[in-house]
């Protein structure tokens, strides 16, 4: 049982993963960190237990040796129950890394979960839907020329609509044009409209990417495919000679862009700056390139730090700056920043319909946090969080509206 899983895992144990397996003292600091464990009480949701399960399976090597050493190291054949626990441990995790903040050694359970997911996929125990979307993102680059005409038509229609609704006759949405900024959206016009307005107001030289920032292969731990999918964007950026790649409000994509791309693409990125669009818009505001109506929204609002923008990429202040520029009543969640609770919908679960109940349950700490602030609007900067928070609001009757930080700015723009 689990031979493919174990073989794949053995090949993919890197230096940090080996540290983690060897030095975890099972102190239990991570118990209170995991939103899955605090809402389910199931041991397979404790971060250290997830690590222990994998370690146990790796040590036994399938030979089921017993005896004193076997008892001491808790080895034994992989049982049905163990496999069930393993699936729970590896798939019911949002990779938020809150447990790493709690851990006195900063052990990265999410990294092990990521590698373990890929290995489980080899065993046929993967999240098929997420993997399929990932594959589509990889193959999109091969057929992009065929898609281009359709894409350009759609964008032209969208631009026309914005011009009419907004009353700005010279607004353009450039596609596949040389420019300073390449903006990479997520699927859906809601990711394009606010930025088209902001870029217009800032008189930015920009172009819209034909690809999307999302990278579902990353969720299933398939780093090779994740790299391929992201490489289409690098190629596009180089072809158009851009100086800045700006990613839409999307958590995992921003993390890969800022933290993984150096290793993935190295020299190909020389002369290209990489930012989250939140940082870019904050810089416009700071440099006075755009003006907004101060206090434009007289609504109590709060900000949810997405795990991947916050503790995993260090973007804490820029979103708050955007909110403060337009809000009258802004309250922090408690805890916030690197100790913020995960929304409960990350790690690719949004794309897997079977996971709805799991993520609704895991979102309870988030719901309580939002209720304590009394906010009517919840602002966040991650597509995944937005979907999850909207679902939570409906399920728990929160009645809050979910907004992106750049949406606020776009709606409060003063255009001359």
């Amino acid at each position: 049982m689990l031979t493919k899983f174990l073989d794949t895992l053995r090949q993919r144990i890197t230096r940090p993963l080996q540290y983690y397996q060897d030095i975890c003292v099972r102190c239990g600091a991570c118990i209170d960190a995991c939103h899955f464990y605090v809402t389910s009480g199931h041991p397979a949701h404790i971060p250290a237990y997830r690590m222990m399960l994998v370690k146990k399976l790796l040590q036994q090597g399938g030979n089921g040796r017993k005896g004193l050493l076997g008892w001491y190291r808790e080895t034994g054949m992989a049982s049905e129950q163990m496999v069930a626990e393993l699936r729970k441990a590896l798939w019911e995790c949002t990779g938020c890394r809150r447990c790493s903040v709690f851990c006195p050694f900063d052990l990265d359970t999410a990294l092990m979960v990521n590698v373990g997911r890929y290995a489980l996929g080899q065993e046929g125990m993967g999240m098929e839907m997420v993997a399929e979307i990932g594959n589509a993102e990889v193959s999109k680059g091969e057929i992009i020329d065929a898609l281009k005409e359709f894409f350009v038509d759609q964008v032209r229609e969208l631009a026309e609509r914005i011009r009419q609704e907004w009353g700005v006759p010279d607004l353009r949405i450039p596609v596949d044009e040389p420019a300073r900024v390449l903006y990479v959206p997520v699927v859906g016009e809601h990711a394009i409209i606010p930025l088209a307005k902001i870029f217009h107001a800032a008189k930015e030289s920009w172009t819209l990417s034909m690809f999307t920032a999302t990278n579902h292969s990353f969720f299933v731990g398939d780093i090779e495919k994740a790299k391929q999918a992201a490489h289409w964007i690098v190629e596009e950026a180089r072809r158009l000679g851009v100086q800045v790649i700006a990613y839409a409000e999307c958590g995992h994509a921003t993390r890969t862009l800022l933290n993984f791309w150096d290793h993935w693409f190295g020299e190909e990125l020389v002369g290209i700056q990489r930012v989250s669009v939140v940082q870019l818009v904050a810089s416009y505001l700071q440099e006075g390139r755009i003006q907004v109506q101060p206090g434009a929204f007289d609504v109590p609002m709060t900000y949810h730090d997405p795990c991947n923008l916050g503790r995993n990429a260090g973007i804490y202040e820029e979103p708050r700056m955007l909110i403060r520029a337009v809000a009258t009543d802004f309250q922090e969640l408690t805890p916030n920043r690197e100790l913020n609770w995960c929304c409960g919908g990350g790690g690719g679960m949004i794309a897997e319909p079977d996971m709805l109940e799991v993520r609704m349950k895991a979102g309870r700490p988030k719901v309580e946090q939002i209720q304590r602030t009394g906010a009517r609007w919840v602002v966040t900067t991650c597509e995944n969080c937005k979907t999850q928070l909207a679902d939570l609001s409906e399920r728990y009757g929160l009645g809050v509206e979910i907004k992106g930080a750049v949406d606020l700015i776009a709606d409060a723009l003063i255009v001359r």
Partner: protein
Amino acid sequence: MATIAFLFYYVFPYIAVAVFFGGLAYRVYRWWQKKLAPARFSLFPRPQSRLGRLLDALVDMFTLKGLLRVNPLLWAGGFIMHLGLLFVLVGHVRAFTDFYFLWKLLNWGKEQQHTFSAVAGTIAGTLFTIPLFYLLARRWSGAVKWLSVPEDFFVLLLLISIALTGFHMRLLRTVEVEELHRFFAGLASFRWQPVPESAGPAFIWHFALVQVLMVYFPFGKLSHIIGSVLSKMVARS
């Protein structure tokens, strides 16, 4: 019995020291054989400069400030235990040599040296031992019971046994440090000396258990003595 005691007095100490240092070196070597992490796995906020990150990792390692923020009780258990251990280890310098310089500086005689050692040693040992019992009790509490494996109990009980045999010598005997100096100098120079009689029967148990600990040390979770700072640097890469 006498043969076993003889081995623990005069033979096993060499093996224990060799396994301890060799084992730790082997552990690091095994880590270094693994492939590097394929990307940066930073946790934010983190200091900007490389030196800043190293300092932050070291400060966090020696103060456990991150744990203090999220779990003060566990922090107290872990931190005080380690602090007590550090004091105890410093005190054990007197088993091999003495703080001659310090005594001279303070102009303390034999009597004062002994009183100071008794008080400081008892405090350090208490700081070390009481948290160990807390950590042991914690192993059965709440969700921690799911995380407890034989190794955890083995290590805690071993440390507690070492501490209690140490207390026996500290509180119930008057150990002549000169005897200890002679014994250990003999071990170091391969000119074996008689066992320190003033330390009483607890000495051999204490000495043997420490050797067991040293042999076990590199091969279990105690390798966090080196691994924790490496792991912290991954989170600050």
